[in-house]
């Protein structure tokens, strides 16, 4: 027999697949899920919160909408309610997601397109950052930079960073199979030539540094807003 507790665990696991598109980390790891409860009748209630009152409303919307979709798909969940609290755009986001209205209708007159391109742009950044995570250890272990253009995903030693890079590429419909080039241009999917490789790796490194620094600031702000208060 499936209990409400089992369903709640499954709902939590589903939320772990929802990422902050900007930071490329699961909302559960970032602490953004304040609570997730499932009642005996299968009603899931999720409470989300973010580092600041003014976090960008487009990314906030994506997280609420993704959380809604992820939890709604859990077997045993009959209806889902996802609420973002303490945010200047809580009302349009919560109402819009509940009504499955899409971003443009949720922010009537303030948005002209859905968020697919924004999401893709940040997935491309995640691919760049992942490229640094995967290639840097290779180069440090003695792989010559000249050898990178001919290498495929199969040639890199297995690692969580490599798995993650493959998944991000697959999400963008970029080549992610064993025989695909290890280093690609995330805009086109084409392999990076030897001539372009040094600059490409520099860009991969600065992209990773930017995302890491941003995550550091966001988590510090989040801690100040919620955890420090709870600790007192």
């Amino acid at each position: 027999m499936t209990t409400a507790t089992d369903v709640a665990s499954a709902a939590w696991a589903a939320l772990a697949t929802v990422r902050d598109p900007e930071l490329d980390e699961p909302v559960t790891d970032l602490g953004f899920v304040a609570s997730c409860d499932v009642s005996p009748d299968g009603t899931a209630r999720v409470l989300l919160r973010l580092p600041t009152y003014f976090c960008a409303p487009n990314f906030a919307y994506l997280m609420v909408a993704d959380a809604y979709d992820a939890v709604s798909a859990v077997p045993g969940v009959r209806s889902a309610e996802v609420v973002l609290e303490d945010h200047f755009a809580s009302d349009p986001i919560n109402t819009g997601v509940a009504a499955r209205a899409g971003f443009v209708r949720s922010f009537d007159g303030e948005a002209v397109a859905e968020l697919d391109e924004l999401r893709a742009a940040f997935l491309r950044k995640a691919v760049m950052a992942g490229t640094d995570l995967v290639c840097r250890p290779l180069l440090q272990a003695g792989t010559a930079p000249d050898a990178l253009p001919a290498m495929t995903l199969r040639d890199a030693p297995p690692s969580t960073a490599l798995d993650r890079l493959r998944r991000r590429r697959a999400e963008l419909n970029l080549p992610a199979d064993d025989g695909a080039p290890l280093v690609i241009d995330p805009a086109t999917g084409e392999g990076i030539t030897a001539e372009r490789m040094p600059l490409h790796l520099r860009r991969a490194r600065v992209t990773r540094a930017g995302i890491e620094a941003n995550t550091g600031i966001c988590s510090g702000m989040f801690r100040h807003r919620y955890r420090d208060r709870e600790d007192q």
Partner: protein
Amino acid sequence: MYAKDGEKYFIVDSHMHYWNAAPDNWVKGAEQYAKGWIECFHAYQGLGPADTHWTIEKFQKYSEDDLMKDLFEDGHVDMAIFQPTYLKEWYKEGFNTTERNALMGEKHPGKFIYNTRFDPRDGDPGLEELKRNVERFGSKGVKLYTAEWNTGSRGYKLSDPTTYRFLEAAQNLGIKNIHVHKGPTIWPLDKDAFDVSDVDHAATDFPDLNFIVEHVGLPRIEDFCFMATQEPNVYAGLSVVIGGLMHARPRFFAKVMGELLFWVGEDKMTFGSDYGIWEPKWQVEGFVDWEMPEGEEFADYPRLNAAGKKKILGLNAARLYDIKVPLEYEVPAQAGQPAAQDDAQLVTGT
């Protein structure tokens, strides 16, 4: 002035504020935004050392005496540049206006430079106000906040034709320096509010203006670095970088500094404390003591010596604002080369 290990540093705090965000200044009906804004700023202060944290009450409205002590008595600052932030949608008299800054600063001659601002959505009255402010306060710089709310609008871009009209007018009035702050909402909301490509366009089309991107485009350092490499008149404003990362996230701070030194170079980076978010004392002292960490992750970043730190802490901003620096603080020419020059050519060639 700060002295350490036989080196003397002339300190220009190129990004600081004197705000009133206390409830008496909140716009009726917009209290939640006024409160949310200052609480958000206060959370940033949490990233600095614990013994420099203020209560929210002091943070909402600190005094003239606090500012003078924190900057000039304790904070080693020689010259401070007020950067106004209006936010009149939420704060009745504005958060931190040119007038408020000047009213205070005029009591302390020789200590402050008054930057002003404009908002291209204000149209002709906005142009008139800009002209009045430049004439009255002698402003050589403006602070632009592209995500500022204005009668229902959630932001604008530097590349908008209406903004170009203001940039032209500002240039004709003698403005040299455009400080740009990117924020969390901009119209339309489906675009990335932190995107810096509009700065790229404006910097190309106004080659005689300098564009100081405050907070180095954080959280989009990569886009900022790539743009700055290609635009000789784009500078990295280090407010938030030092205050938000040096203490709280020292390894990320080192990486961001390494990237900025590589792509932008020590001649185009300027210190700003972002006071009252953070006091300058710990930032100046910590930055003078800072060294790139050892280890493979940091091995190929450029190094920063005392001459480079002197430029970043004051000499670069002094050059942008024609501040006279006594000879003893200057560094010999050629003391440091922008690290990214070779790669700038590489980028331009692609």
